[in-house]
């Protein structure tokens, strides 16, 4: 019999999540009011940061921290993969597309059961890669906006308003995705309500693993049993 809880996230992953959570929040509350600067709530938020100067300073500071987190995340992932410490379980596969369709069929009542998932289901992969792609767009466009004089030495000037358009819309999309999707899957979803603690504690119950990630559970338990079998 296995223990009741299974280790799902490493300490480093948990710290990374908290760091992204904080910088993302800070970037949102200092970024959105700049996009919607004519509204009352935007004016209020900006006044909390001591005016537009203070708001931009915090936004840029948080943006640089976010950039470092992105570099750290990919740098360390790259090293770990090279060292064969982790498997590329987050990379989308053909199965994810089949799972998405299978899940849709299940929701619509056309299939009796959900597809079974491995370490990350297709929704989690979507959110992860959405954050990665969005993050890259935000970092690139953010730096263009921070150093327009430098970048237009070589690049055409139009890249700056294009970066602003991208930064502004991608940022809004990211916030909406987090507010709608992440809040649902990590909090309001009846399966985890009121909160999915695993990203903070690093542990997940065997029951939830059985329910949400049965393929990974099977592999973990097979690995664990190996030495006794051989």
């Amino acid at each position, binding site marked *: 019999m296995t223990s009741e809880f299974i280790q799902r996230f490493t300490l480093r992953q948990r710290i990374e999540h908290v760091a992204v959570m904080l910088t993302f929040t800070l970037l949102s509350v200092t970024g959105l009011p700049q996009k919607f600067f004519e509204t009352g709530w935007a004016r209020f938020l900006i006044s909390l940061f001591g*005016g537009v100067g203070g708001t931009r300073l915090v936004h840029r500071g948080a943006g640089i921290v976010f950039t470092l987190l992105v570099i750290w995340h990919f740098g360390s992932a790259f090293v770990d993969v090279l060292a064969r410490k982790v498997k590329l379980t987050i990379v989308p596969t053909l199965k994810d597309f089949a799972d998405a369709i299978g899940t849709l069929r299940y*929701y619509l009542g056309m299939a009796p059961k959900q597809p079974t998932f491995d370490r990350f289901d297709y929704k989690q992969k979507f959110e992860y890669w959405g954050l990665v792609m969005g993050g890259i767009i935000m970092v690139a466009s953010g730096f263009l906006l921070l150093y327009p*004089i430098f970048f*237009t030495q070589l690049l055409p000037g*139009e890249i700056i*308003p294009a970066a602003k*358009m991208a930064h502004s819309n991608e940022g809004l999309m990211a916030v909406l995705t987090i507010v709608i999707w992440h809040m649902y899957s990590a909090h309001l979803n009846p399966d985890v309500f009121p909160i999915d603690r695993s990203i903070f504690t690093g542990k997940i119950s065997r029951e939830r693993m059985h329910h949400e990630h049965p393929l990974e559970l099977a592999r973990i338990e097979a690995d664990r049993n190996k030495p006794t079998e051989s």
Partner: protein
Amino acid sequence: MKPILLLAASLLLSAAPALAETGEEARASRGSGGGDVEGCVECHGDPDLEVTLESGETKKLHVDKDVFLGSRHGGKLSCTDCHVDLKGSEGGHPEKPFKTSREFVVRYSEQCRSCHSDHYAQTLDSVHHAVLEKGNLKAAVCADCHGAHDVGRPGEPRASISKTCAKCHSDIFATYSASVHGTALLDRDNPDVPTCTDCHQSHAIASPRTGAWRLQTPDRCGACHGDEQKMKKYGLSNAVLKTYLSDFHGTTASLQKAEPGANPVVALCTDCHGIHDISKVKDPGSRVLQANLVKTCQKCHPEASANFPAAWMSHYEPSPDKSPLVYAVKLFYMFMVPFVIGGLILQIGLHLWRVVVKR
């Protein structure tokens, strides 16, 4: 701010009986109906009547009766309505204590407030009054702009407004006269271009050097340049204010306006287009002509390269021919945002339906 000022003004006015009345009412009720002028012109009708003041200046005391009767006050006011201190005096009156001719004008302009209390109150807020209070009697008072015995209808013709300011501000007037606004006003009596008072106001003229005043620049220019009807007449775009505000400079200026004591560090309309010397955008000397633009940017961004001015979309909305890259990005997100967010909401809805309703 306004009510406090009015209160202060009425306290100052406490000598005048018609305190609670508005300017309009006061003006209607206070005139004596243009009583006896004849008695005064018996002496003051003499073109040679003058007095030498302590300063050595000669003060003309002649009043042309016809000029006065032809003025806005003619037939409505009698001499002692303004020269109240002389009420009841007959056949000569005591000498005035004024040392200089200027002192005389400044003191008698105080009298205007007994009827025009509303406008007088506004002048208390003005930079002219602030200078006057510091003891500089050169600051403009009522009579300097409106005249004394020859008070006319203000602002007719419109060019007279700017010419009035030119009496003191001649350098600025010369610059303005050569500008696109000035030439239209002075040469063609154009009814739409701003005279001095359209930007600076007539009575509550504020100092144009404060940050707060400068941060109002977009509103000031936008009052006309955001007006579709007015701009259509001249084939100009009325999107200039909107496009300015949606860009970095405009957003910053708009937000800074709400901050007390803010000093703008971003380009306002006038930083690129000029102030009194505004020219047509297409004039060869225009600061905002494409060929001159990089120099204009370099005023604030000394490192700016030739590519840099294109970072500003020249008041155009993104479109396939003006800024195709920006337009493409805009179009992409116009579809992407609803697609992604709609998709997520749909998925949540379906999930809830399956696990809650149709278990």
